[in-house]
């Protein structure tokens, strides 16, 4: 079961992790910057991602209206100068809810991907450095977790621990571990086979030092690209879980929850079901394009056929 693995919404046309051998770093900074500015998907993705992150940051100091304030007198108002995108069924301001929703998405995404990256990359590095039965054991454990898409693990967790933000973070995080594990092991193995690692071993460096000084810096770009793409998947998963009522709970605003609320009002206020979806699509599209762009910039040889 090497190569591309089944995941909830993994972009399957990505090159298989095992094939990803990074080039040696060392291009001039200015050249990279120029290429970055000319790279279409990197720039579009970067702008969209920045937009979502700014919205999340802005919501911590300012929203047009208090996002939690219920105002039944003004419920389901159409867009106006007072409420730019109108109000929801409880009279809350849609723009404010979207801004705070961005914060929820990013918070869940960052922590979940952080868990996946830290645990997955560490295990992957250990597997590549130690080989033998330790590698076998780690990889087989990774296989088990693949049997549980994020949704299934969230369902199990929600069934026993109750729904909530922590449940969705844990479920998405656990689901990310085997993905990072595989990609780290695959690319670390490729580095271990290189001459400069052999030279370091001949020079008497231990496995731990080689991992930290040679392997990790050389696979960092691959991990950054993967983390960007997984971030997009985490935002999708968070939205699905909170839409189903397993993730973020009210009154904490979240995009998925907003879609769920809007669904019962499709005939009265159809636009309510449009805004949160657009927000999710913007965030995911931005991160996907950014990931593609970063992949090209870090190593043009890995760029996809497009």
């Amino acid at each position, binding site marked *: *079961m090497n190569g591309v693995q089944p995941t909830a919404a993994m972009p399957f046309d990505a090159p298989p992790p095992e094939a990803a051998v990074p080039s040696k770093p060392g291009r001039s900074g200015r050249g990279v910057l120029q290429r970055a500015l000319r790279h279409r998907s990197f720039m579009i993705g970067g702008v969209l991602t920045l937009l979502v992150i700014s919205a999340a940051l802005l919501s911590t100091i300012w929203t047009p209206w208090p996002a939690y304030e219920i105002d039944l007198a003004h419920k389901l108002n159409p867009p106006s100068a007072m409420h730019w995108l109108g109000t929801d069924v409880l009279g809350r301001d849609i723009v404010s809810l979207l801004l705070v929703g961005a914060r929820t998405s990013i918070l869940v995404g960052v922590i979940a991907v952080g868990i996946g990256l830290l645990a997955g990359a560490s295990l992957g590095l250990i597997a590549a450095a130690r080989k033998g039965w330790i590698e076998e054991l780690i990889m087989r454990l990774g296989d088990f977790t693949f049997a549980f898409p994020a949704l299934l693990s969230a369902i199990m967790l929600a069934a026993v621990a109750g729904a909530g933000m922590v449940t969705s973070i844990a479920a998405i995080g656990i689901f990310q571990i085997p993905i990072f594990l595989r990609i780290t092991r695959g690319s670390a193995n490729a580095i271990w086979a290189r001459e400069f690692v052999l030279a370091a071993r001949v020079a008497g460096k231990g496995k731990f030092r080689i991992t930290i000084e040679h392997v990790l810096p050389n696979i960092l770009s691959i991990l950054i690209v993967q983390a960007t793409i997984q971030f997009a998947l985490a935002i*999708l998963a968070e939205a699905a879980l909170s839409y189903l009522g397993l993730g973020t709970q009210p009154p904490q605003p979240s995009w998925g929850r907003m879609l769920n609320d809007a669904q019962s009002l499709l005939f009265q206020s159809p636009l309510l079901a449009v805004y949160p979806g657009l927000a999710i699509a913007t965030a995911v599209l931005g991160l996907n394009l950014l990931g593609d762009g970063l992949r090209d910039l870090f190593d043009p040889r890995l760029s996809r*056929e497009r």
Partner: protein
Amino acid sequence: MTVFILRRFVTLIATLAGASLIIFLVLDALPGNAAEMLMGADSSPEALHAMTIKLGLDQPLIVRYLRWIGGLLIGDMGTSYSYGTPVAELIAERLVLTIPLAVMAMLLTVVLALSAGVYTAANHNKMGDVGVMALTQFGIAIPNFWFAILLILLFSVKLQWLSAGGFAGWDEGIVSGVRSLLLPAISLAAVQAAILARVTRSAVLEVLRDDFVRTARAKGLTRRQVLWGHVLRNAMIPVMTVMGMQFANLLAGTIVIENVFYLPGLGRLIFQSIANRDLIVVRNCVMLLAAMVVIVNFVVDVLYAAIDPRIKASEL
């Protein structure tokens, strides 16, 4: 080849065993007392005790686990607390909806993806290619449940062609059943088709560069004959691998989509069971879905090896 299949089969069994153990430990051992979860914290100790014995929770963990697995092997999944009927019957009833839905979605995915993938590869870097590829980027970024809501907005709210949800059952006739499943299947297929179209395009472009393509053209075959006859067949190996994985994804995706359209399938059953604290149903449904994911991947791996003679057991 046989060695490879045997080895993959052993891994399959080990994975299923591991998955069942994880599911059992999470759903059965962690919460402490399922009887209390079922009856509420304020029920009397006598009633709780009676329930504990009725559920067999006074037995040691290992006995309960083995009893569950033994039951599974002969098709006995136990009895649902909330419905009072055997879980296997309950699940079979729901699969009558979920399996056709997943198959419909898969067919749509394949038709859309193959035509888009071959079209874009044949028109590499032309307007049509760029346009369709941009569309697939959006397809990948859109959550399927939002796409489903947009479809409801268009076809049910605005045009009023199809109902916004629900399923009357197959007794009403195949046409009515398929009509109810049409929007759900499209919303499931759209995202998967976007992904598969990109894979197909890459694979076809890869094969187009091969020498035999030039030879086939040189001996007088038309572009169309070469493209659909020779190129697509050779490009199918990576495409099929991804298709297998996507079927597993579709099954998981039905959980969400069934909830959007209020369809009484496996996904709705899981949610109702969580709400009813009917852990025995949740446990068996999750096991069933996990098993389907693992088995589909096993079949894909074996097919992959059967189709591509370059794959030797030693390489895997």
